[in-house]
């Protein structure tokens, strides 16, 4: 009698149900579906813009369909979730050492959040929202 190690496979299609943190990871990854789809929408919008004022107005009007509204809400959630995970990750990818210590991760991420807020605000102002 001898060794017969038991291999317990990681189920390739359902593994992410095993731990809540895997679910969190998958939700982060899935944001790409919505963001990707939204990018396609942007390209279509560009086309309409190129086609002239009528087309553009039609595009804006089409956006108002219920399906489009639902989609954009989802896309917004996805984009914001993506942004949060991305900024939280910056402290891991780019730690900053000053002397013996490291700049606290929260500070690095926090700076990103702040820049994000400022940038968004500027865009909103330029777009004439306020």
């Amino acid at each position, binding site marked *: 009698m001898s060794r017969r190690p038991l291999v317990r496979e990681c189920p390739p299609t359902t593994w992410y149900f095993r731990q809540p943190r895997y679910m969190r990871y998958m939700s982060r990854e899935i944001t790409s579906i919505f963001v990707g789809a939204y990018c396609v929408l942007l390209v279509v919008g560009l086309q309409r813009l190129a086609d002239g004022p009528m087309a553009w107005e039609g595009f804006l009007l089409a956006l108002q369909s219920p399906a489009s509204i639902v989609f954009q809400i989802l896309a917004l959630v996805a*984009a914001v979730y993506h942004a949060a995970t991305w900024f939280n990750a910056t402290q891991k990818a780019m730690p900053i050492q000053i002397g013996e210590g490291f700049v606290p991760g929260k500070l690095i991420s926090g700076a990103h959040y702040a820049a994000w807020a400022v940038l968004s605000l500027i865009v909103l102002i330029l777009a004439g929202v306020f």
Partner: protein
Amino acid sequence: MAKSHKPVVWFPFAAGGTVIAFCMPVIVLLTLLAALGHAPAGLDYQNMHVFARSGLGKLIIFGVVALSLWSSAHRLRCTCYDFGLRADTLAATVLYAAAIFGSIAAAVFLARI
């Protein structure tokens, strides 16, 4: 094992991820406002046209669209694998091709403006 050429796709992915994080939420917010019937003045044809015709505007629009497309395509490729789709080459080909196609389309449309 040879060194990987992954950086070719990963670098634009990382750049795109950053662009998405910073820009996408506010852009979606703007179109969502439009969808809800409160389109801000900035989305008027006139304003959009002026913006998209300027060199800087073209550059910004193209940069945002192309990088975001690429980033999403790359992430989707990984996600396919995570969901158990083992045909990685196929997924990569289709998704990257779509991203490139989208980017070219964006460039063409921008050129026409």
